[in-house]
């Protein structure tokens, strides 16, 4: 499998460490406020886990060390794009499966090299 790291371009999957589905945003730390249990339960444990296009965290651990969110189909393993984790929750989440103009895909990553 090849993963399009937004920084490095297309790279073999063995350079990455996957962490699991990126479905719910990570709840913010609440300062002195009482932390929000259900949000954390949702973030840490519960998953839609679809057999479809999905978003997953990968760490380019043997590479540039970016955390990225990979857009991938869990049944076909087709990779349609990737976003820096730093940007993923900021912007509007790209629609699942849609080729993401901002991120290199299997085709565009190559050109970037």
């Amino acid at each position, binding site marked *: 499998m090849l993963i399009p790291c937004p920084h490095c371009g297309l790279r*073999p*999957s063995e350079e990455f460490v996957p*962490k*699991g589905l990126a479905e719910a945003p990570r709840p913010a730390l609440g300062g002195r406020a009482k932390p929000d249990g259900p949000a954390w339960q949702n973030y840490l*444990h519960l998953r839609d*886990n679809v057999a479809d296009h999905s978003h*997953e965290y*990968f760490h380019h651990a043997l590479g540039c060390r970016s955390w990225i969110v990979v857009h991938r189909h869990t*049944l076909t*393993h087709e990779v349609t794009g990737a976003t820096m984790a730093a940007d993923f929750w900021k912007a509007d989440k790209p629609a699942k499966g849609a080729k993401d103009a901002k991120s290199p895909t299997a085709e565009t990553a190559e050109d970037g090299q």
Partner: protein
Amino acid sequence: MADQYGFWRLLAEGLRGHTGWKPAWRDPEPKAEYDVIIIGGGGHGLSTAYYLAKNHGITNVAVLEKGYLGGGNVGRNTTIVRSNYLHTGNVLFYEKSLQLWEGLSNDLGYNVMFSPRSIINVFHSDSARDADTRRGNQMILHGADAVLLNREGIRREAPLVDVDNPRFPVYGGLKQTRAGSARHDAVAWGFARGADRRGVDLIQNCEVTGIDVRNGCVVGVQTNRGPIRAKKVGMAVAGNTSRVGKLAGLPLPIESHVLQAFVSEGLKPMLHNVITFGAGHFYISQSDKGGLVFGASLDGYNSYAQRGNLPRVEHVMEAAVSFVPAVSKVRMLRSWGGVMDMSPDGSPIIDKTPIEGLYLNAGWCYGGFKATPGSGWCFSHLIANDSPNHHIEQMRLDRFETGYVIDELGAGAQHNLH
């Protein structure tokens, strides 16, 4: 019963050209309604149906299988059977299951080839030895068996293991003598035949596409072969738990991941026991047919595909030739994958759901083959009595909210780390 298996029957059939064998199970049309529907004709679904009939006298049962019986993980796993767990929540259950394995062939009248050839868990450091000592002690306190081996013990019991590996020298191992392996297909087929003969309808090529819930109670299911009504529905769909759960609107703490397995060409006896390596997350045994059956950990990414990729293959082989160097020249014959229902603590869930009459059996990760008889025993009890027996008291669905997790590895709430 007339259609019994056994030596004399085989002899008699041999003499008359095997014309007398009956189908191992019927191929019935689904009825309009059942007392209990079990979704999933894998090991757990079939054993649940078997014990519902045998232990609880509930025979108006259908097992709905979307493909062919036993085509899921029960038919594609590395067949290790053991109860060498650390936590009470697990040992109590897996030890019950191991006890059932010991009498299973005779109980089913079907040779499931359970072979107590022992499992040896090799460790590579003093701290790992202490952890395994604790585990061994816990096992014994829960009624299981365990033996601590030193290096010499490993040399004696598993001579092909590279005890002097300069990278990860072997310090010793924890052995469970009663553990072993079984023939995967025979387990599915034995339970299927047993359930069928007790009146259970096994319905293949029948995919559940909806779960009908009225006023918080389950009333039946939709399938590609039409709707079927039921008073109770049990889910035992392993890697497809989230998809089926969604049909009932259940949010579940499950991710699906692929695990690969491998078999070598058939060879004359080479390895006696099942061996697992702490440092390499690698396990290997030899099947009755002579193939070395082995595997390691998940590919790591989320997947519903029953196949994996080369990085994990390489990793597995690196571990294999490092720990059992003689296998280097042995050729890998076939590799495949199965879809695992990974829970956040690596332990299973057998529980009621918030929907009345809907029961959940899930989260087996890659350890549910050994659970097959135990799971059916306990799940059928839960379905029949609406309350868990003591073997599964801790396998609750709400434990992630409460924090009573059963984390064998101590890896924390990340599904793919277990």
